[in-house]
């Protein structure tokens, strides 16, 4: 994607005419940014509630402190997620007015329900974050539960809209292609929705768990191995370690759904130029301009076996050539899809092995793995989880090209005619990069303040801060 973006910048500045690549780049960039915040919004609340529950139930002061601090971090990530999500609601129209004009009546239906969940999330996250001091402990705990529930159903609703783009059902068109009737249930519960939604929700737990755990893994590597830090790590990593094996099963089922329902996307994923049986699984590799697979490591017959294990190597996989060139991803897009697929599966498998290590240690030794190498791997797992998620989303989106609504509308027919998008794209990139860096810096600063016990400084909100004497306040490290 980075190369795409760079190429777009260079050509766009020179020509500044065709808005389509710019619209695509901007949508891709803003979604790629927003999707990193999604797992935190969905699963961090659950981790916080686990700590909160433990804190109240077992009178565990460390757990309570952990829950409080996590809720403070969540306040920041939720705010950033809320505003970057809002940008998307502008961009649907700013970048894809023809898509929204024609399909809004169907595409919008899941969002109407998503609105309910977003409201719920926003209201209760405020009550939970600000209610620590005055609400009774259990009452306060329960104000956090709707956040977790709304997070799950909210992401299901959004994915339902995206799934509808892959499987546009529940609409009746007249001869000119105008939507004249909509079956809301058919739109929401389209065929692609259940598996895609499950894949994303589990991904949110997987990625969120690894992201939070990786921070504590770094802390433990730096010698902060007290009860507080261990608990932060164990809660987060356990969530991820439950989600990861589930994700392997969900993802595998989804891949077979794509094989059955979106053969062209499947051909791009597996990089299959011509229909045949006994198709090899090519790791990495490249589709050249002649449409031939070059390089990579072919594993004979594996793609066929995985597509339908019951038929083994005799399973026929439909090739790209069955679809007219104008209606299938370009060779470049096939390469992007295939590479993203390899990255997602490869990284997912590594993370799965890491969770196996974790479970083995708990089963055989009744404690978490003691090895430094485990912690080092866990420290990398947050970034790896994000990489896998971004790659998976790339597979879904690039693999659907050139369609914005599968077999009904092409991306190029959906975009705005506005030629100034390259300018907004640059503005958005600068703003978001600043936003991303600042978010991380602010959270690091919060963490340092928590550790250093300098919380007193904040009591002087806008005046010059009073110096705080060291050791004024003892916070468990």
């Amino acid at each position, binding site marked *: 994607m980075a190369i795409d973006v760079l190429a777009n910048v260079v050509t766009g500045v020179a020509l500044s005419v065709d808005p389509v690549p710019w619209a695509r780049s901007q949508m891709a960039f803003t979604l790629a940014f927003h999707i990193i915040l999604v797992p935190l919004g969905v699963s961090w609340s659950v981790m916080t509630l686990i700590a909160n529950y433990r804190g109240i139930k077992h009178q565990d002061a460390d757990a309570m402190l952990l829950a409080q601090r996590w809720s403070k971090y969540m306040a920041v990530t*939720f705010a950033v997620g809320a505003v970057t999500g809002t940008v998307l609601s502008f961009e649907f129209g700013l970048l894809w007015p*023809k898509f929204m004009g024609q399909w809004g009546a169907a595409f919008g*239906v899941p969002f109407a329900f998503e609105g309910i969940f977003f409201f719920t999330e926003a209201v209760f996250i405020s009550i939970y974050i600000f209610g620590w001091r005055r609400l009774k402990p259990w009452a306060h705990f329960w104000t956090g539960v709707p956040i977790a529930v709304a997070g799950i159903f909210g992401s299901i609703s959004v994915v339902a809209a995206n799934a509808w783009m892959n499987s546009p059902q529940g609409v009746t068109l007249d001869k000119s292609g105008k939507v004249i009737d909509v079956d809301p249930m058919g739109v929401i519960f389209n065929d692609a929705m259940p598996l895609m939604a499950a894949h994303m929700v589990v991904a949110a737990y997987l990625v969120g768990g690894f992201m939070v755990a990786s921070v504590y893994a770094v802390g433990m590597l730096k010698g902060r191995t007290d009860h507080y830090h261990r608990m932060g790590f164990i809660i987060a990593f356990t969530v991820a370690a439950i989600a990861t094996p589930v994700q392997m099963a969900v993802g595998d089922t989804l891949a077979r759904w794509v094989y059955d329902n979106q053969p062209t996307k499947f051909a791009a994923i597996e990089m299959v130029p011509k229909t045949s049986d006994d198709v090899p699984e090519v790791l990495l590799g490249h589709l050249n301009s002649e449409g031939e697979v070059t390089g990579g490591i072919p594993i004979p017959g594996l793609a066929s076996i995985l597509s339908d294990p019951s038929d083994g190597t005799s399973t026929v996989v439909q090739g790209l050539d069955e679809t007219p060139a104008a209606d299938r991803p370009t060779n470049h897009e096939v390469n992007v899809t295939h590479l993203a697929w390899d990255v997602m599966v490869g990284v997912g498998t590594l993370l799965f092995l890491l969770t196996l290590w974790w479970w083995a240690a708990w089963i055989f030794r009744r404690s978490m793995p003691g090895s430094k190498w485990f912690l080092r791997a866990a420290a990398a797992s947050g970034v790896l989880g994000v990489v896998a998620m971004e790659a998976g989303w790339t597979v879904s989106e690039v693999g659907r090209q050139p369609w914005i609504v599968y077999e009904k509308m092409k991306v190029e027919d959906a975009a705005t005619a506005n030629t100034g998008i390259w300018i907004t794209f640059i503005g958005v990139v600068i703003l978001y990069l600043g936003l991303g860096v600042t978010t991380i810096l602010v959270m690091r600063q919060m963490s340092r303040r928590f550790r250093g016990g300098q919380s007193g400084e904040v009591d002087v*909100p806008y005046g010059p801060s009073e110096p705080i004497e060291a050791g004024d306040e003892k916070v468990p490290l």
Partner: protein
Amino acid sequence: MDTTAALVLFAAITTYAIFGGADFGAGFWDLVAGGTKRGGRARNVIDHAIAPVWEANHVWLIFVWVLLWTCFPEAYASITLTLFVPLTLAALGIVLRGASFAFRKAVFRTRDRRNFGAAFAISSVLVPYCFGAVIGAIASGRVPAGGKAGAPWGSWVNPTSVLGGVLAVCVAAYLAAFFLVSDARRLSDETMVAYFRRRAIGAAAAAGLVALVGIFVLANDAKYLFDGLTSRALPLVILSAVCGLAALGLLTRRTRHGARLAAVGAVASLVAAWGVAQWDYLLPESLTVSAAAAPTGTMTAVLVATGLAAVLIVPAFVLLYVLDQKTLLPEESMPEPAHSPLEQVSHVTDEPAG
């Protein structure tokens, strides 16, 4: 059913104008509060007032967009196609405002707070201006339907749009000042009660003046809207003026809630007057409500969702506002009395300063 959906849409716009508007207005007062020392106390009240509620209030905007693109897709597509520039500015402003406000609360160095505060405050003025300009563009018939783009600049740089933008900023500041009077009173900060009361009067005068000037602007620049405002929407215009005057009267008589309610009434009837004046056009003289309406199935689904929202969300909002108004959601970083560091360790739930 199309009419019901349009009413829901306008109700959502009104709610956003009031609650979202008050949050933006608070940012305006933050901007003009003065230097770090001088403005500290006012910013305290502002932080206190909007921190627990702004995100929930912000969701109304997303709900408005969702209603618009689902129920009236062509209107959404036409608006976003023509008003690309002000809407892009608004979107970026929203990112800047929300993120900076959250960051300001999370950091503790004065310099950082000041920078984030400035970004928050400036974008709090930019966003309502852009939305006001967008409404001005729509109301003056500068957004064509049917997949044609209107003038990319002229559509929102024109007398009615400037009026809309300035009026939106004034109205936001006006509402916020009334809300902040109550918030300061809740904090028992009498100095700040007087401070925001003066500003409420000033903002009311400014909004009234802009509205008066607006009459002449609209008469020349937005004929259709002007005719609507002076005929079928006239009762609402008068109601708005009466509410505005009543709010001022109640404010000087120092009643507890009346002034705030009357101010809300003034803004709500102003938004309603706009809606009635251009009825039954969504985009005056080019796209009516029924022409833009989505098929029945969509409308049914959206109205069901709205009903569910009313059942689920309204009680949640009531809970949030009640807890907030009873000061059960204390700003964690605010100075709270009787807090020794030792206590904070023994009672973990009392840990301050997130």
